[in-house]
């Protein structure tokens, strides 16, 4: 019944398109594309003046990261282990912005997806695959991807393997720490941090592999950067030719150490940090965290810290710091020309939204940071808001939508995924 309705809907749109074409051209074989419609009320989102939004698709399941092809087709990585549901392909036949072809393929959970050249890359929580694209940038063999990386550690905590590629044939994979702060007993009150944290050997960093070599294991890769607790959003900044990542900061400063931190400090510490990485960099986890209020690297209480002692002399500083616990799941440097000039080369960050602030959660929005010469040139601001559909969120389960992945379309539109209801939003700028 639903399928019939959708068909009927598609048919009536098609009929409208061909009618208008007939009227203007007298030639029914020419299909003129509609200019993208936008949803009434911008699909529920709050946006700056001049921006509009529409839902390209919804109810896709847990839509994690997203990639858009040079022809505007959309591939969404869905967090599902159901057969044939790993990746959803969206195509818009009539140019109204709404997907009217929705197909899915692949069987594996996972978050990462990205397009580079003639390949689509996607990750499970252990492996990375690539799919060859045809001249229309569509996957040729959805059931026969090449496995390029295999056997990455997955212990259920911080298990997403997010992806970025540079312009020299390398792929970067986040391997998150399977721990909060490398304690002897994870998240246990009073449990000390392990000296010489062994998790750093196989996780808590970014690994670099070759994008075109099959079956690479740890030994074939390079530990590119370490001391990063968990990175879900990362992007290759083509202007700087450098990898930028967003770290999920640690939990539990107040819960585990009420002798050093108040509830309010637990809510506000540590900062969610953006790092610009060079090969060999160390961001300091688990020994330190970044206090965004004092703008200092602080010794972690599991390793002798008390909320006052600083640490991490060899650890890099973040290039930008955001309020604690907001869970940055998507990072995108905007290179398009559709948006006003201030957005060019700046960073969009999708904050999934916090769960461990107490008495009111934060995030659930997409923010923007202007950039100049590879550094933030101004304060961050909320760009797209009201994904949650409610104010005063006490518990993340109350949010109707949570932003997760970001991608830029060939026309400079911004795509945002939501992993609660599986919505794909497209944000455009018209100036009106």
């Amino acid at each position: 019944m639903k399928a019939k309705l959708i068909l009927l809907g598609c048919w009536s749109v098609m009929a409208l398109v061909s009618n208008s074409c007939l009227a203007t051209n007298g030639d029914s074989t020419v299909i003129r594309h509609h200019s993208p419609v936008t949803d009434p009320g911008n699909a529920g989102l709050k946006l700056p003046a001049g921006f509009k939004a529409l839902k390209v698709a919804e109810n896709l399941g847990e839509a994690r990261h997203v990639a858009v092809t040079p022809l505007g087709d959309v591939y969404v990585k869905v967090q599902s282990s159901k057969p044939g549901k790993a990746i959803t392909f969206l195509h818009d036949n009539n140019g109204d912005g709404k997907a009217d072809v929705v197909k899915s393929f692949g069987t594996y959970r996972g978050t990462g997806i990205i397009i580079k050249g003639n390949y689509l890359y996607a990750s499970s929580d252990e492996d990375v695959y690539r799919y060859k694209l045809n001249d229309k940038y569509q996957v040729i063999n959805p059931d026969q991807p090449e496995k390029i990386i295999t056997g990455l550690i997955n212990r259920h905590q911080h298990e997403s393997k997010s992806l970025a590629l540079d312009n020299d044939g390398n792929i970067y994979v986040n391997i998150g720490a399977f721990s909060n702060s490398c304690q002897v007993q994870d998240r246990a009150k009073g449990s000390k941090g392990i000296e010489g944290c062994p998790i750093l050997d196989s996780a808590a960093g970014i690994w670099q592999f070759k994008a075109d070599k099959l079956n690479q294991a740890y030994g074939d890769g390079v530990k590119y950067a370490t001391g990063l607790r968990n990175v879900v959003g990362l992007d290759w900044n083509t202007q700087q030719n450098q990898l930028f990542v967003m770290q999920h900061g640690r939990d539990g400063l107040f819960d585990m150490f009420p002798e050093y931190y108040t509830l309010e400090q637990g809510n506000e510490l540590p900062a969610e940090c953006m790092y610009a990485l060079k090969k060999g960099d160390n961001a300091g986890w688990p020994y330190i965290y970044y206090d965004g209020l004092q703008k200092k690297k602080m010794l972690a209480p599991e390793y002798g810290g008390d909320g006052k002692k600083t640490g991490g002399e060899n650890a890099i500083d973040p290039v930008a710091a955001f309020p604690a616990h907001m869970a940055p799941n998507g990072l995108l440097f905007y290179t398009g020309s559709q948006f006003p000039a201030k957005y060019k080369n700046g960073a969009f960050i999708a904050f999934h939204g916090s769960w461990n602030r107490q008495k009111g959660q934060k995030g659930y929005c997409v923010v923007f940071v202007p950039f100049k010469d590879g550094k933030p040139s101004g304060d961050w601001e909320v760009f797209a808001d009201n994904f949650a559909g409610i104010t005063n969120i006490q518990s993340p389960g109350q949010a109707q939508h949570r932003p997760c992945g970001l991608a830029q379309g060939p026309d400079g539109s911004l795509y945002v995924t939501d992993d609660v209801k599986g919505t794909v939003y497209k944000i455009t700028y018209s100036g009106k």
Partner: protein
Amino acid sequence: MKRMIVTCVALSAILSLMAQAPKTTPGQQSKIRGKKVYEQYCLACHQVDGGGVPHLNPPLKKTSFIIGDKTKLIDVILKGMQSSVPIDDEYYSNNMPPHNFLKDQEIADVLTFIRNNFGNKAKAVTIAEVKAVRAKQP
């Protein structure tokens, strides 16, 4: 005006009823104490509404572990739980640390509170039951 008088009469009736209400039962007292334990040790992860966090921390609403076998549930509090163990066919990313530092009374109270809150309705947990499970710990 008439409405106001009616409201006042109704209010005072309720108030006097409350004043005359019988003392809270031991079960209710346990729930009240349990709520405090919950707020201090459980709420940060399992949330104010017991809803948990999708994929990170399991919900406590009608979860089989919560309303099911008491021995198993007490065991989870004492030993904690690893994220590799599925809960009602779902995996949750965060490990739960052991809470064996809680007193028998606190564990009985918090479990009684959880089993009779968030839409749950299950039998209270007693101190004796917690003691018995703790005695079997290695």
